[in-house]
């Protein structure tokens, strides 16, 4: 804990918790092991310090609460308003209203569930496709030496420099020529390509730093190439596989323009384009509208709750890779 301003030389400080009674623990001054006399003498100073720490925490915590509240306010408003009918929405605009109208969620589910279903299908298949292609290719790039390895890898990495938005128009024409516009397949393919590229680059780095001895040992034991990949590499690479999977899911959940342009059939829309359409169709129906937003948010919220570490790595990876 580098930032304890109040006790500069107290790195192993036992009074890290501001609620702790300072007297049994040595004050920052006595850390260095001064005599008993010094300890008793510094007691008021220690108490003073702790109360200053607590005061800093209160002020800082207050300011942070304000920032957190400002950031979360739209979502809080959404949750509260999603249980109101329109009458309650206007009558008690700022406060929760009784009785709650769970029916809003039933109405919204009818409209939003097809988008959720398509999003699950697209995210699932895109993740599966990208992981199959990327793990195999990354494994080969990381653990084999062969002519053309660096050139081929450079060709893959170069694609990271091409932002998806610049290929949008030609990719659209290609899909038109292939006659797969307005299908779920057209939504899946760009996420497979994009995340295969991103996946190969990050996985190769990760796989290359695994110690060679493990693989040598497996080969001595008679494991073939495929066996080494499946029962050794894949389990070892689980963290980076998880990150790539989350980047893919986040990408599907945040990609707006591609589904907007390529898909007309309502149930083929993924969440972003679908929800924007839903918002236009249900303008001024505030309760069901907010219930729909909440339902669309639920899957990512669950991911964030249960996989928060991977989730954050996914966000950083996704943004850094330019998606």
């Amino acid at each position, binding site marked *: 804990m580098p930032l304890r*301003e109040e006790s500069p030389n107290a790195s192993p400080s036992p009074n890290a918790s501001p609620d702790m009674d300072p007297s049994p623990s040595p004050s920052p001054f006595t850390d260095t092991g001064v005599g008993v006399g010094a300890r008793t003498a510094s007691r008021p100073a220690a108490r003073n310090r702790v109360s200053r720490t607590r005061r800093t925490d209160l002020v800082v915590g207050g300011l942070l609460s304000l920032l957190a509240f400002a950031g979360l306010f*739209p979502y809080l408003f959404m949750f509260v308003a999603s249980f109101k009918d329109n009458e309650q929405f206007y009558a008690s605009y700022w406060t929760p209203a009784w009785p709650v109208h769970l029916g809003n969620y039933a109405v919204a589910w009818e409209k939003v569930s097809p988008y959720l279903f398509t999003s699950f299908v697209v995210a699932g298949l895109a993740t599966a496709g990208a992981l199959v292609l990327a793990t195999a290719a990354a494994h080969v790039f990381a653990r084999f030496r062969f002519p053309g390895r660096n050139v081929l890898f450079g060709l893959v990495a170069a694609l990271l420099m091409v932002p998806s938005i610049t290929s949008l128009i030609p990719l659209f024409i290609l899909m038109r020529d292939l006659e797969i516009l307005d299908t779920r397949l057209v939504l899946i393919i760009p996420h497979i390509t994009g995340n295969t590229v991103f996946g190969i680059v990050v996985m190769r780095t990760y796989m290359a730093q695994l110690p060679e001895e493990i693989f040598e040992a497996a080969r001595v034991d008679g494991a073939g190439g495929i066996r080494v990949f499946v029962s050794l590499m894949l389990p070892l690479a689980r963290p980076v596989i998880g990150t790539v999977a989350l980047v893919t899911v986040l990408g599907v959940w945040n990609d707006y323009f591609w589904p907007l342009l390529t898909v007309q059939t309502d149930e083929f829309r993924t969440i972003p384009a679908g929800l924007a359409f839903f918002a236009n169709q249900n303008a001024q129906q505030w309760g069901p509208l907010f219930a729909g937003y909440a339902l669309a948010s639920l899957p990512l919220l669950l991911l964030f709750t249960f996989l928060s570490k991977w989730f954050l790595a996914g966000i950083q990876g996704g943004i850094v890779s330019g998606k």
Partner: protein
Amino acid sequence: MISRKASPGRRRVPWGVYLVLLPTFVVLAVFAYYPALSGMLHSFYEWRPGFSSPFVGLENFVTMLGDDVWWESFRNVGIIFIWATTLMWAFPLLAAELVMSLSSERLRFVFRTLLILPLAFPAVVNVLLWQFMYDPRDGVINSFLRAVGLDGLAHNWIGDPDTALAALMTVGFPWVASLPFLVFLSALQNVPAEIYQAAAVDGAGRLRRFWSIDLPMMLRDVKLLLVLAVIAVLQYGLQAHIMTKGGPDNATQVPVLRMLDAAFLDTSWGYAAALGTVLFVLTLGVSVGALLIGKRGGKGATA
């Protein structure tokens, strides 16, 4: 096996690897390399998909030079960039400093989680909620102004060309649930405790410590954030498309929307491809430029 290890140079070529790479490269060739190259190539054509497309040389780029809406979109992108690298960094920076000023690890964890929680919502939900915040009749902002008696200030925020762009950029206020916050926070966490202790012994106050320790420590990350900001701003479009469609009166026009309009409204596919190529070249220029500057800076530092 031993002989293989002894002479890696004469190791036989593992032909199987090419078989493993084949599917990946087939997919990338069709859906990544081909569209990217096709887009650049068709910048020089009057592209009429399904029909014969005549070569027109630089005509699309000449059209672009005279395209007022396109240039207006770049003025807006400039404003968005300045906003994105000042105000939209100031709040995350403040929040990161505040979090690190807390005394207990548990409090830090709680506030960090609360501050980044908005990241767990889909971007489109964020934009749609802010669209509601700005709703002239029922939105939170105007309702609040009326509730506190400031009816005169109530305003059609995204319908007025004077306020539309600022309203778009305010989406997500205070922008703490963002990559800059995560980057600033991890930079501060990586400052060795000894440096702070030494500074405290020297009697450096909180502000002094910020200027002399925290900011220099973050400088490397700021460079990366700057490059990412340029790339992100060039691709800015979600908020504008949902909330204003580039209007009113092109006040929120951005390059991506202009490109999509050229393709899907005017069906000038070649022109849209040219605009996409320009965006690509700009992005590439920024990335490569940053890489070169970063390399030179790194060499200067080590020399």
